[in-house]
Structure formats: structure tokens, C-alpha cells
């Protein structure tokens, strides 16, 4: 039977951040997740923004965590070797009604201790953002709203935690939590029983179901769907900042911003659902994005769309981000209500939960040999020509470009499979390296990545999944026993 000190349920951005933080201490940490890869649910589909919390409910734990986390990212991203860009956000007002809302928004930011929000004139806004609707009257500038690669953040937290001796158990579903004398004892999973002294529920969308396993079902998770568009890097109408609409009573509205890789991200919708697995986009939702964002950026080219996706915010009912502990379930920490600001809050939540566990009695001996920095996979397309040449000389696989849209080489794909947290599916490769995330959506590289994955994992191509088990890519050989020409040809 497996034993651990701290067991984290859920390998999303929050679970992985907590694992990385705890890997600084001399405790055994195990993260369990039902998916085949880390970051498989809410962490994979969001707006990839590091927020300031300027619009959070003042005085809330969410406000506190986001406020604390924002300044951590510059160093964190450098340590974890992931991209990060300080682009800032603008919030333009186009109508008199919107203009009159600006002081209240600024005041709310102040209450959230975000003191650097500034007014901008129409002229200043148009200078910063020439594609903005020229009807703009004035607006706000929120300088510390940043962008990040959310997939890499999760992978990097996880890999760094792994390097510091945390463990991950993927493809494993939790079926129950056992307690003993009012304290947690372990969990039951599809892979057997695991004993644990401390259990952290970071199950995101499913955190209510996990909470019910310890009899704490005093809330539900009501997913709130957000649909997005991704536009081609070559689209002619771009923005330089995160362009936020003035929020209404109902919604924060739909934004347009650059992604860290130079695409344009547009959305999201906000639709309350009951189904936690409804990741479908729909014509009405996509139309509402086109309509709303065209008011901010009239020349936006939806014809340059390369992808649409939907993410689910793990919205809590009753609302609010909470970290709960219970006197009658000792050793148990319950996280809930982590929504749009979850990516941002993760860095602070890691520390918050670690401190909560220490207060509960978890031994807090710092590992003097903690490895703070993670080295990511070489990103071929970001190297200078000289460096590219050197890399190919060391490993010729870097001289074979597999994904032409994003210039991803076979060397990078092979490395992703050989990492301590290996990429085992098409989407795992895509999230780590962007192969298939470009304008041809994998039309070119997909068949090639499939064969490289099968070769590197030493399995047949039928065993390769898009993501989770059951999402098989192909059904078998056309003619059995024939040599595959493509194998040498990828």
C-alpha cells in the first residue's frame, strides 16, 4: 500500500502549485488526478491572464490571494523557465454611462489595494491601442495585468515539484476518503488505497464531490462556461494590451488580448451550467463574442480565427473562494470557489495551503537542497540562428521541424516524452510545445507527432490518445504487416 504525508487531490494549476510549495519541506507529497496529464480541466482553458485583483470582491480571500500572488510571477516564471509578459490592461469607456462607472471601478481597485490604476484620456488610449473603437471617451489603465502560458505554468510547477521528490499518480480516480478518530487516514482510488496524514482537496470542478466524501457537502460547484476564439498570429488587427470591457451587473464581459505566443485571444462568454463535462462551443456563444468584442475593436478579423474552445470556471454556490479546515476532519484542507483568478491565485494558494498544513502540525523542515529553478525544454524557435545551429550539432533531431506553424522540432517532442513528467498524448505534446496549436491545427504535424509519440513510448499508434483514455486517434493499420513508410518520414 502506498503511503504519503500529504496527498493532494487534483493536478490542476492549484494542486501543482501546492505540490511545488510543499516540495520545499521534508514531507512526502503525492498528487493524484483522474486525467492522463496535469492541468487537464479548468487550468487548460482560460484567458491566461495574471490578474491584479483590481475587480475582486474587496476584503475577500480571493482579493488577498490575487494581490499577494501578482508580484510573485516575474521571479516565479524566471525560476520555472516559462514565458511571461508584462503587457498591462486597459478598460475603455465608450458611452456616458460607462464613463460614469470609471470612478467606482477605480475605487474598487483601491479597496483591493491596487493603487496603480490610472485614468487615460481617449487620446492616450488610442495611442496605446490604435485599433480601439475611436468612439472611446476615456478609460482606465491597469498596469500590472500580465499574460502567461497557463499550460506551461502547470507543467513547470509539477516538474519542479517532481524534481524535489514530490510524486504524481495520474489516470487515477478517487472513490472515497477514509477517516479515523476525526482525522483523515487515506483515500480509496481506482488504483487501490493510499494512506495519508494530510489531504488537500484541490479538485476544482469536482471539489464538491470530494468534500462530500468527508461529509462536508455544504456547497456545490456550478460550472460557468467561457467560450473563446483564438486568432492567427498574422491577423491584421491586433491589440497590445489586455482590452477589458466595462463590466455589467451580470458579467465581466468579453475581452481581447494577445497571448504570450502572439496570437489574439477573444472572449469569454459566461454561461451557468449543471454539466461539469460540457466543454462544447455553440453558435450562439461564438456569435455573442463576435458581436460584443467588435464594439471594443471594430476591425477585429474573426475570419482569421484558428480555434475556438470552451473552459469551465469552477464557480461555487454559494459564491466565493474559500480555504476551509474542519475540527471534526483533522488533516483535511478543502479548497473551493477557485474561478477566473485561479491561475493567478495559484502561486499564493501554494503558500497559503502550506502554511495551513504547518499550523495543523505538518513538519516544516526546509529542504536545504531544494532545487528552485526548473530548466524547460529547449524552445528551438526562440534561439538565435547560431544557438539553433549548435543545438542541432548536439542533437540532430532538433534539425527536423515537425510543426511548421510553430516551428517545433522532433528533438523537442522526443524530449517532452522523456521528461520526468512525460507527455503521453497528442494534447500533452501540444500544451508543452505548441505542436498543433498553430494555424493548421495539426493538419500537417498531427500524423507526424502521432508516429513520434508511438515510437518514443514504444506503443502502437492505436494506443496514442488525443488526451484522456478513450480519445484514440486512429483505429489501426490499413493493411496489416506492411512497413510504414511514414515511420522514417515523419
Amino acid at each position, binding site marked *: 500500500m502506498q503511503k504519503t504525508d500529504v496527498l493532494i487531490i487534483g493536478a490542476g494549476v492549484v494542486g501543482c502549485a501546492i505540490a511545488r510549495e510543499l516540495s520545499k519541506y521534508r514531507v512526502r507529497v503525492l498528487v493524484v488526478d483522474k486525467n492522463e496529464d496535469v492541468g487537464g480541466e479548468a487550468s487548460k482553458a482560460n484567458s491566461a491572464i495574471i490578474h491584479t485583483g483590481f475587480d475582486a470582491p474587496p476584503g475577500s480571500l480571493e482579493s488577498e490571494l490575487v494581490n499577494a500572488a501578482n508580484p510573485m510571477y516575474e521571479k516565479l516564471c524566471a525560476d520555472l523557465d516559462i514565458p511571461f509578459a508584462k503587457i498591462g490592461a486597459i478598460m475603455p469607456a465608450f458611452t456616458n454611462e460607462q464613463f460614469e462607472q470609471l470612478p467606482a471601478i477605480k475605487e474598487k481597485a483601491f479597496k483591493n489595494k491596487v493603487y496603480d490604476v490610472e485614468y487615460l484620456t481617449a487620446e492616450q488610449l488610442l495611442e496605446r491601442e490604435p485599433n480601439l473603437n475611436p468612439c472611446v471617451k476615456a478609460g482606465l489603465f491597469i498596469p500590472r495585468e500580465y499574460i502567461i502560458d497557463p499550460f506551461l505554468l502547470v507543467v513547470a510547477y509539477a516538474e519542479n515539484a517532481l524534481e524535489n521528490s514530490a510524486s504524481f499518480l495520474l489516470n487515477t480516480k478517487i472513490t472515497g476518503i477514509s477517516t479515523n478518530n476525526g482525522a483523515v487516514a487515506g483515500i480509496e482510488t481506482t488504483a487501490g488505497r493510499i494512506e495519508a496524514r494530510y489531504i488537500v482537496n484541490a479538485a476544482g470542478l469536482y471539489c464538491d464531490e470530494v468534500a462530500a466524501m468527508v461529509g462536508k457537502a455544504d456547497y456545490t460547484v456550478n460550472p460557468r462556461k467561457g467560450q473563446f476564439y*483564438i486568432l492567427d*498570429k*498574422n491577423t491584421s488587427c491586433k491589440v497590445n494590451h489586455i482590452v477589458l470591457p466595462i463590466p455589467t451587473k451580470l458579467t465581466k464581459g468579453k475581452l481581447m488580448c494577445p497571448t504570450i505566443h*502572439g496570437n489574439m485571444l477573444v472572449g469569454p462568454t459566461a454561461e451557468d451550467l449543471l454539466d461539469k*463535462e460540457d*466543454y*462544447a*462551443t*455553440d453558435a450562439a456563444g*461564438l456569435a455573442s463574442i463576435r458581436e460584443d468584442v467588435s464594439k471594443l475593436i471594430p476591425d477585429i478579423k474573426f475570419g482569421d*480565427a*484558428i*480555434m*475556438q474552445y470552451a473552459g469551465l470556471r469552477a464557480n461555487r454556490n454559494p459564491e466565493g473562494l474559500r480555504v476551509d479546515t474542519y475540527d471534526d476532519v483533522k488533516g483535511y484542507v478543502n479548497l473551493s470557489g477557485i474561478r477566473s483568478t485561479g491561475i493567478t491565485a495559484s502561486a499564493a494558494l501554494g503558500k497559503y495551503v502550506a502554511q495551513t498544513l504547518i499550523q495543523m502540525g505538518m513538519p516544516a523542515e526546509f529542504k536545504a537542497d531544494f532545487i528552485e529553478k526548473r530548466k524547460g525544454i529547449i524552445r528551438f524557435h*526562440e534561439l*538565435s*540562428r*547560431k*544557438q*539553433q545551429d549548435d543545438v*542541432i550539432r548536439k542533437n*540532430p*533531431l532538433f*534539425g*527536423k521541424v515537425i510543426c*511548421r*506553424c510553430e516551428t517545433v522540432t522532433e528533438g523537442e517532442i522526443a524530449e517532452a516524452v522523456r521528461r520526468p513528467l512525460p507527455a503521453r498524448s*497528442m494534447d500533452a505534446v501540444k500544451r508543452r510545445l505548441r505542436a498543433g496549436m498553430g*494555424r493548421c*491545427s*495539426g*493538419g*500537417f504535424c498531427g*500524423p507526424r507527432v*502521432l*508516429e513520434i509519440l508511438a515510437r518514443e513510448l514504444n506503443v502502437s*499508434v492505436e494506443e496514442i*490518445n*488525443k*488526451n*484522456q*483514455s*478513450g*480519445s*484514440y*486517434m*486512429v*483505429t*489501426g*493499420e*490499413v*493493411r496489416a504487416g*506492411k*512497413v*510504414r*513508410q*511514414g*515511420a*522514417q*518520414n515523419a
Partner: protein
Amino acid sequence: MHEIFCDVAVIGAGPAGLAAAVSAKKQGVAKVLIIERDISPGGILQQCIHPGFGLTYYNEELTGPEYAGRFVKAAEDAGVEFLFDTMVLEVSGRFGWESGLAKNSGQESSQADACSAAWTSRSAPPAQTPRLTQAGSGDRRKPGSSEGDSSFSGACPAGNAVNIIICVNKSVGMAVVYAKSIVLAMGCRERTRGNLALPGTRPAGVYTAGAAQRLINRQNIMPGKRVLILGSGDIGMIMARRLTLEGAEVIAVVEIMNYLTGLTRNRVQCLDDFGIPLLLSHSVTRIEGAKRLTGCMVAQVDENRKPIPETEKFYECDTLLLSVGLIPENELSLGAGVKLCPVTGGPIVNQFMQTSIPGIFACGNVVHVNDLADNVSAESEIAGSAAAHYALGLLPQAFGSIVCVPGNNVRYVCPQTVALTNEDAKIKLYFRVQQPYAGARISANYNGREILSKKAIKVNPGEMEYVAINSASLQPPLHSLSAEMPGEIIISVEKEA
């Protein structure tokens, strides 16, 4: 960095690149080099194992690999050189350099200065000299990523050999190719689900038709068992037959337009002969399935191509193939600063297939999407010869330029311009219609004067048409012999009973 010098460099060894290279070599240039990312020549033809190629070019019916094989043989016989397994990352043409430099330093520079600056740019202060990426609007490069590379330097080659290709190869590493002229022959890519904004979940089992064709014909892998095909483009119909022959069940081909978008012969040979239903004026409205595709909702569409909700019906399938159009692959062209036509998505070219950068030529599907490889070959021979003539300094001098304008029921005309020269030649202007007409008259008007008129039994957006005009008929009146008064040719298609 590995250095290669040549007269004509061709990017892509598909039907366009092969024909261009053979034709260039035959003009008497010393070195023609094809750079190809695959390990073997032929491009997409390697996976087009069906017949139907060569009917006009060779007057016989060949398969894709056979058709490509003839050009490969011709290329080898002519002494064309190949660089396989090599991906081109960047192209820059001479005019791109000059404008980049002028814009950057705020002053005029002689060509020689631009040239020598180009060779040493990577080691020189960045603000003063052009970098390889700055002429174009290509991908945003992280600051500093192209700095600190001192190996990229050397003497400026003689003549006009200032076009540069940077490419990557497993065995030589990074390579820089200096060419007197470049032929862009990168072909096209397939439109995707994202381009269409097709709603629904994102399961496995949604493929572009070409990707599925590669899986089956080159990798011996079946993509699925029960297949729905969206789009009546040629690749989709050919895949309907191919999948059926390999034991898959193709339940229907769904087409949003009220007419077939591919060739009629493919409908007959690939759908009708196999009893595969074609649903015109229908579209996929939703993709379903959390892991693997479980099916698609299909609805009839109205005259505005909007789905009619009450006609929506579920089609159970594990695979959806998309054959919904092709997009010329011009990221390299954009990076070089080549001007593109918004309608075709390819470079604006003249009758020599010369782009807005004089030393860069383009041909085949990178310029405009063709329906027949035979047309690509013919067009590419023009590009190849012209590129060779340019390298030799023999390309006819232009004293003006005419714009080719799409008139009634014409979507685009290619070439988009005609350079006025003293050369007496037949110029083929290819075009596509917007709407199918049964019975039509095609006419070409030059500055208000009809220079050509011909009858067509039927015209169809899926089948490219052309008019051949005599350059002699384009001599402008004496008073307008200047670039300021270029004139225009309007190609129109009128309905005729």
C-alpha cells in the same frame, strides 16, 4: 552556418517546384536548387495515389506519384539539385532588404551598402542595420533572439545574388542559401475546423481530408471506421472513395453550398459509383463526443447558408473529415515582404509569376489554389523560366503594368497584373467564377476595348477557366506610354442561353 550559393533556389519539391526547377535549368543557369522539407520529392502528389493526373499535360492518365515521377526524372536529367529533409524558416528578397534598411536608418542607401550590411547584420548594432526579420510582418520575435550570431557574415556575392533563404537540416544544421532568384512553391494548407468556427466539443477523430489521406496512403494507418465528410472539395470526395475501398463506412458528403465545389468527374467516380450520398445545402452544425467523436448534427441551410434548426439531424460517426478549402501557405512570403492578394491569399504576380519583390517568383498553389496539377505544372514552367531569366539578367524590361480586374461573376484573375514589355507572347489569364452558369460568354476588355470573347458551355466555381490574350493586343496608345497610365483588363462572365 552552412552556406550554399545558387542561381535559382526553389522552395518546395511538389508539382510546382519540380516544374519550375526543370524549366529554370533548361534556360541555361548553372545551379538550380530545390529545398524540400520531406525526405523525397513529389510533395502532396506522393499521397495522391488515385489516377486523374496528366490528362492535359501528358495526354494520358497517371496517378499522383507517377505524375510526380516524370518531373523528378526530368529534374534529375536536367541536373537540378535537391536539398531534402530541410525546412525553410525565413526568406528575404533584395527589395525587402532595401526598404527595411531605408525605413530603419531613415536615409537612402545604395544597393551595395544594403547588401554588405545584410551579410554582417547579425554582428552589427541592431538599431542601425536590417535584421532578417524586419522587412516582413512575420512572427513577432522575442527581443534579442536574433542577436549575438556572429557566424552569419561573409563577402557580398557579385551580381544581384542578394536573395537569402535560411533553412534547417538535420545533417548540416542551419544553412543559408544565397540565390540570384527564388521561386516560392510551398503549396497550400487545408482549412480547419477553427477557420470555420464549427461549434461543439473537441474530441479525437476530426481530421482534415489531406491529413487522413496521408495517414492512409503514406503511413498505412486508418483514421476511423464510420466517416462523415464535410465539404465537396476534391480531396474530400477522393477520400470518400479511398476510405470505402479500405473498409470504412462513409455515411455522407455534406456540402454547405447548393453546388459541388470539386470537380464533376470526382463526384461521378468517387461518390456516385460507390453510392455515397451527397447532401448539398447542408452543413455540420455541432460536433459531439467527449473523448472520440460520437457523431455530428447536420442541418439543411437556407439561401444565406444559415442552418434551418428544424432540419437538424444526428449522424452517428467516429470520424469527421473536413474538405472545406485550401489556403495558400504564405508565411514565408509574408516574412519576406511579398505583397499578397486578399482574394487568393497568394502573392500578387505578373505574367512571369514575378511577385512584388523582383527577384522572387511564385507558382502553383502558393499563388492560388488550382484544381489540376497539370495547370500547376504549366504555370510553374513560366515561373521557373522567368526566375532563370532574371538570374541571367534576361527578363524583359517592363515599361508599364496593367491590372487584371475581376468583372461580372469573376472572383479573381491570376496573374493579377501584366507587365508591358516588348516581348510578343501569349499570356494566359486564369480565373474563377463566383456562381455556376450553364451557358456563358467570357470576355476580356482592355481599357474599354474588347480584345477577346468566347463561349463556355458551363462555368463552375470548382473549375478554373482561362483566357489567352496576345501581348501585342495590349500595346497602349502612344500618349499613355508611361507607368502612370497603366490601364486595366476586365475579365467578365455573362449568362448566355
